[in-house]
């Protein structure tokens, strides 16, 4: 079994959104923004994979930050999010509104922070960090696509009015999270027999 496959699959099935609820507001609310709205957080998570592990595991490791790690990790994740926002805005020049996304300053509702936090806890090498980050980004992206499809469908189906919008998105997220945990368990079991 390819040793790179396990951390990737783990991160896709058990991504920060489904496991902890980070990035929730962005996914369940129906504000506009098109694809940059989904791509920017996913890109921020991937950038976190490239940068967090080298910075915190090499440059800051000798300082043994302990509880003070948060003092650096939160601003660092916000910085990554704003950089990602700028990149996406520059790429989508002319097709989307070019104002800065203020949710980047909350690290996309903690999504980037959670990815950075989990990378530092789970990754044992730079490759691990990259695989974990790309898996988390793919997992978030798949959740976003699924929830977007559910939202569109709910506009045409006879859904009770009090459930439409955010409540329905939350309930759908919960069901997806249950399914993902079953899939992750089954996947790990299958992988475990081949390891």
């Amino acid at each position, binding site marked *: 079994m390819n040793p790179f496959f396990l951390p990737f699959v783990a991160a896709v099935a058990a991504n920060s959104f489904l496991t902890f609820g980070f990035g929730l507001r962005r996914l369940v*609310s129906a504000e506009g923004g098109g694809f940059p709205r989904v791509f920017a957080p996913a890109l921020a998570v991937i950038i976190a994979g490239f940068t967090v592990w080298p910075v915190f595991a090499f440059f800051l490791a000798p300082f043994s930050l302990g509880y003070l790690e948060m003092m650096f990790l939160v601003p660092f*994740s916000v910085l990554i999010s704003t950089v990602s926002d700028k990149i996406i805005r520059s790429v989508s020049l002319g097709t989307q509104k070019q104002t800065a996304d203020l949710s980047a300053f909350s690290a996309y509702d*903690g999504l980037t922070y959670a990815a950075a936090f989990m990378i530092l806890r789970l990754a044992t090498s730079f490759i691990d960090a990259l695989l974990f980050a790309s898996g988390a980004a793919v997992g978030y992206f798949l959740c976003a696509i699924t929830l977007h499809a559910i939202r569109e469908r709910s506009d045409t189906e006879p859904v009770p*009015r009090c*459930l439409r919008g*955010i409540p329905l998105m939350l309930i759908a997220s*919960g069901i997806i999270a249950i399914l993902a945990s079953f899939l992750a368990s089954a996947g790990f079991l299958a992988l475990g027999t081949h390891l």
Partner: protein
Amino acid sequence: MKTTRDFPFWGDKYSPLASLAGVVLLIGATSRVSYALIISAAIFFVYAISTFFLRVSSRFIPSAHRTWIRIVFVSTVTAIFCRIAGIAWPVPVKELAPYFGMVPLSLIASDLLDRTAEETPMRTIQASVYEAFILCGIALVLAAVREAFGYGTLSIPNADGITVLITQESAAALSLRSLTATAGGFILFGYLLAAYRKNRFRRYGIPRCGEDDV
């Protein structure tokens, strides 16, 4: 005539639930009452101290770098809280570690610092404590429901983890463990929002029930 604006848990567009700022804490850190108590303490500590000091020192903060200075300051206050709380409750603080980072981010996302920029320092503290109170109230109610139905217990934090105050054997036997997972939090919170909308429609007659406002 009463309006939804008078209702503290929802209020205007800046209220914690209408803006959904801090909703990650409401779902992620409320699997037990003990965890919700620690997160509530963190929210009160960080909101009150950060808003007060940032308001008092606002004239010395260059406007060009205001956002970044705020983020670093609020993160530092949260790290200080983690250090202090870690002495009293080392195990629960370690278990809640991923969620503490969301406290400063929730404060930034709530826009509270900008909204109270023109207020007096005393008024700033009042506003921040009021907002923290709303967030913590909802967190504790959610935690009580989730722990009671999920584990059949109610607990408070201690140095080694949790102390179970109330155990109900019959409830424990029927416990719905999925309620204590994040998935259960999503579903419970979704139904609570729907119930609120229905109640709001009945009491205030607001016909916007079903749109994307909370």
